[in-house]
């Protein structure tokens, strides 16, 4: 973790950082707006003082209100790791520019992100489903996609792995007394 990197990033991007540069353990994190994504990635990749030339990971995040795309980069200059959070993708129609012009290897990771979140990466040559079948319609990692586990939990909050069977309390007396000769 390098304090100078934080200063350098703050100096380079200035206004474009949505939040101050954060550093925790060996990770440095910046948060930028959707409109700046391509520029920031290019600067970070090409700037001779930064040289974040390795894309370690690319993933999407659904916060429930908006979508993020998160890039984890590693610098070939200093070995620092940088996390770039591109915030503010519209949940109904998330779109962002592809990073394949810098890292062709991002192609499949973008496909995966598209498959799981429905984020459309403009400029990716092969943006189609990768895990799910082609005719699948939902995006499983979105927060409004409930697992069966969630679903069984949601109507009665507090139910967790415990299910009750037993006497149905709402059954009427008449249904139970059907065989009684006296009734």
């Amino acid at each position: 973790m390098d304090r100078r990197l934080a200063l350098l990033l703050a100096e380079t991007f200035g206004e474009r950082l949505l939040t101050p540069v954060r550093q925790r353990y060996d990770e440095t994190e910046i948060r930028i707006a959707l409109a700046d994504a391509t520029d920031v990635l290019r600067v970070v990749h090409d700037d001779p003082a930064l040289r974040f030339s390795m894309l370690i990971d690319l993933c999407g995040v659904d916060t429930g209100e908006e979508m993020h795309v998160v890039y984890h980069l590693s610098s070939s200059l200093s070995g620092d790791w940088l996390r770039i959070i591109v915030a503010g993708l519209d949940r109904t129609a998330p779109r962002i520019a592809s990073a394949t012009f810098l890292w062709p290897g991002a192609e499949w990771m973008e496909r995966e992100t598209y498959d799981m979140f429905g984020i459309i990466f403009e400029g990716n040559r092969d943006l189609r489903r990768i895990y799910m079948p082609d005719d699948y319609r939902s995006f499983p990692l979105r927060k409004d996609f409930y697992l069966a586990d969630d679903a069984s939990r949601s109507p009665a909050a507090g139910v967790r792995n415990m299910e009750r069977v037993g006497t149905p309390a709402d059954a009427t007396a008449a249904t139970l007394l059907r065989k009684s000769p006296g009734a």
Partner: protein
Amino acid sequence: MPRIPGAGLLSGMRLTLTRFFQPKRTVMYPEAKPDIAPRNRGRLELVTDEHGTLKCETCFQCAQACPIECIDMGGTDTKGRFAVHWGPAEQYAERREESAMRRSGRTVPDAAAATGARVNTAKVDEILEAHDYDPHHMLAILEAIQATYGHLPVDALKRVSRATGAWYAMVYGTATFYKHLAFEPGVTRSIAVCRCANCLVAGAGSVMGTLSYEFGTEFGRAIPWSNLRLESLPSHLPDAPSPLVVIDGEPQRDLNAKNAASWAAALAGRYAA
């Protein structure tokens, strides 16, 4: 790689030929058992004693201790009322069914929500607030709930479990341990039959059979559609007739083996109405 073409191939051939004569590593499985380390987790199994009875007494402690909830326990309580289920549910039919429904795009019914009596748990939250959400005060919390609702609704217990972080099995265990905590709403009245030798000779057995037939339940259980409970009397009351049937502490006088059937039917009719 050596310079002479084919020398590498020949050295490889030599190696396989030496291995041809070396001792073999196969474990002749059914005859020779593999060397398994004592720590091997293997598969979870229930242990039985020498009589073939399961040693497990369903204390849920193993399931609670398992950090990743891979131990699954299920069972019915002694009175046959509640299926207590602990652990990941996906191995079980109910869950498979849900997944199937989910995959086919249908809504998934919630077994817990559909069958239990729904109660408003707002008061539970107040009680919990008063006890500072402390699971150590479980008995006091449950008593307060019983005082509020008259019994312990399942929803309330689940709410307690969720809010305090106590495992449901723990809450349930506390609730079943204390006799004064009840699960059935308002079981205040009981029909009790004496089973002393005298009464049995006088026809208490047929009275019991008729009663359990008419009320559609068994002795020791609540009658599902009413606030009544069928019980057997621990001992014969002094100067009471035989067979002895006690309703809410009131011994029934005009009863014998002959009119027991019509009496019970009339009783059932009265309570049903």
